[in-house]
């Protein structure tokens, strides 16, 4: 422990001094020509205390001093996991679904709102998971498809009064067309280049939405989008079907739940299909996949299109739920947020991403007073995750076994 600490301690001290050197000029040099140290030291000491506690715990754990506490807890956890495994997966799925179905009966409006957001982001996150997690193409402009879906419904609803249910598939199709349009020229690129180009495309879409005044009403956005409607049988004045709009939040909750469930099922089926395997092979080694007869070009294009479909569905629902769209909702930060959900949860892992979405939406709501620090924490979490746990909170299970795993 002492030796460990000496080794890490030196790096830690240097790192903290470096941090102080960075923080102080930003907050300690004032306009009136004075210098102050108080605020810089306060911020710095918070960080020092926090990181030191983490470091100490890490070292104690690593050198075995916490075994007395962690070993029994680990056994309890293993027991629980074993018991949970004993129950078939479909029962857990049913329980989760039932819980989701009765959720609005026991909660208030605010909780519905948060839950709807979580469900929208689950659709987005799983859609992005197809592109990033399965096919391994880093897409930083993903939110553009969400925007396409939202604007499709907004425009069709406002100008032509088309119903939500009709627009949902239209939005999905248009988003996937956009996915192909953006995907086609970028698919020759790999890795970092692809990331930057998709980022550029995302910005182009946002700029178009922002500047095409005659179509999108520019930065003012589109108002007066109709919520989804349904026909209910009515017996007043003879039997006929009456059209009502679902303005109540818990109706919208069920629609969001339906979209999220469809997404989950579809992504799961895709993941374990031939196509899903082909995507994974492209992710692992594109050249080898091509040699094995995988049509990499078409499959990568398909990954883009499929990812965009779910973003389009989520986008159409978002427009119907907010009844207002503006380019403000489709900035790069949104893309980064969806991406950090996927990364945090575990790329390629469906339960992981659901957990990631729930965590990144619910936690900021719980810690409302730290609202400002949200993106700061997201950024830091992304870096820290990549360093310590690149596979995410719930790492994806691989399909089949790999040769190197058998040897180990």
């Amino acid at each position, binding site marked *: 422990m002492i030796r460990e600490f000496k080794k890490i301690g030196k790096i830690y001290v240097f790192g903290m001094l470096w941090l102080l050197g960075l923080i102080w000029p930003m907050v300690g*040099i004032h306009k009136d020509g004075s210098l102050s140290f108080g605020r810089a030291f306060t911020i710095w000491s918070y960080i020092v205390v926090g990181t030191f506690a983490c470091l100490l715990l890490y070292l104690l754990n690593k050198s075995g001093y916490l075994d007395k506490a962690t070993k029994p807890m680990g056994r309890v956890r293993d027991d629980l996991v074993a018991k949970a495994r004993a129950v078939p997966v479909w029962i857990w799925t049913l329980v989760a679904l039932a819980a989701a179905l009765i959720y609005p009966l026991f909660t208030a409006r605010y909780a519905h709102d948060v839950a709807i957001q979580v469900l929208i982001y689950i659709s987005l996150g799983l859609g992005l998971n197809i592109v990033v997690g399965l096919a391994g193409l880093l897409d*930083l402009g993903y939110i553009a498809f969400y925007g396409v879906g939202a604007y499709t419904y907004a425009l069709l609803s406002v100008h032509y009064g088309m119903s939500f249910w009709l627009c949902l598939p239209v939005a999905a199709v248009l988003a996937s067309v956009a996915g192909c349009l953006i995907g086609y020229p970028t698919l020759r690129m790999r*890795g970092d280049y692809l*990331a930057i180009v998709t980022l*550029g495309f995302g910005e182009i879409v946002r700029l178009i939405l922002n500047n095409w005044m005659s179509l999108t009403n520019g930065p003012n956005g589109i108002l007066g989008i109709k919520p989804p409607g349904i026909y209910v049988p009515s017996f007043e004045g003879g039997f006929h079907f009456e059209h009502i709009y679902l303005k109540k939040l818990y109706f919208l909750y069920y629609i969001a739940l339906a979209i999220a469930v469809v997404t989950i099922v579809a992504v799961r089926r895709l993941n374990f299909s031939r196509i899903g395997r082909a995507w994974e092979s492209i992710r692992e080694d594109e050249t080898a996949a091509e040699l094995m007869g995988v049509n990499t070009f078409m499959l990568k294009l398909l990954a883009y299109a499929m990812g965009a479909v779910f973003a389009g569905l989520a986008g159409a629902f978002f427009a119907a739920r907010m009844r207002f769209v503006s380019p403000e909702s489709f900035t790069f930060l949104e893309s980064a947020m969806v991406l950090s959900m996927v990364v945090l949860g575990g790329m390629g892992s469906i339960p992981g991403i659901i957990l990631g979405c729930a965590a990144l939406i619910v936690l900021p709501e719980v810690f409302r007073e730290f609202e400002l620090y949200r993106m700061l924490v997201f950024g830091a979490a992304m870096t820290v995750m990549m360093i310590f746990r690149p596979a995410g909170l719930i790492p994806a299970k691989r399909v089949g076994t790999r040769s190197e795993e058998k040897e180990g």
Partner: protein
Amino acid sequence: MDYFIQQLINGITLGGVYALIALGYTMVYGVIQLINFAHGEFFAAGGYMGVILLNWFIGRGYMSTHPMICIGASVVLTMGYCAFLAMGVEKIAYKPLRSASRLAVLLSALGMSIFLQNAMMLTQGVFDKPYPIELAEGSLTVGGITVSYLQVIIVVFTVVLLVGLNLLVFKTRIGMAMRATAQDKVMSSLVAISSNRIISLTFAVGAGLAAAAGIMVGFYYGSVRYDMGFVPGIKAFAAAVLGGIGNITGAMLGGLIIGMVEVFGAGYISGQYKDVFAFIILIAVLYFKPTGIMGENVDDTRV
């Protein structure tokens, strides 16, 4: 015709700034074959540090007595600050991931970029921060063309920095070590070049140049903002790719071209879509000639 030449001069000014940022991308790429996503943030941090130092000098009253020394000191200190920042960022977000997959490094750098941007927002506020003084008032008028002294200073300073960088990379021992590391890390470490130190140094030099660009943009537009690093960052990346990533001369050329395209696009086609032109060039270059104008053959895995 006057309008054309006027735009040309604006384009050169802007292009010089992009070239300075692009150099950071291209140098880092040359050494570790990765895109430094946080680079735009170094540029923004430079803009902020410039404002803070200038304000301080004005507050102390030094600015009225020794203006040139104060401005010079601000620029140098800012470049130093950003170099310091970049070295730390490299140690946190890149060094532990040397052997990880490219996607992991990319994401950790992206996280760092979001983190830095928000840290700046929290310490400096969400609003535009105005530059306290004008570097040089007045302008030259030749024929119908106006060139402000500020533009002249920016172009001259850019050229000085670019020449300095060229001397550093091609004439000194450190530059030789950098080029050796860029070519082959294993071989250069065998001749006692510490690749970790060279990578740190490369980040520092690139961030210093970006900081200088940040100050100049601050003077040019009169204010800085916490998210100002994002769009110029992508444009400078486009410039680096256009010139051939990893190639220093190419980055300078690419920066100039992107600056010109943006200014002419805004002047002759549409001012609202001025940000789009750089992206379109980026996509076109990557599609038709991924090695860029001056790039050598890049092997298949990089593109």
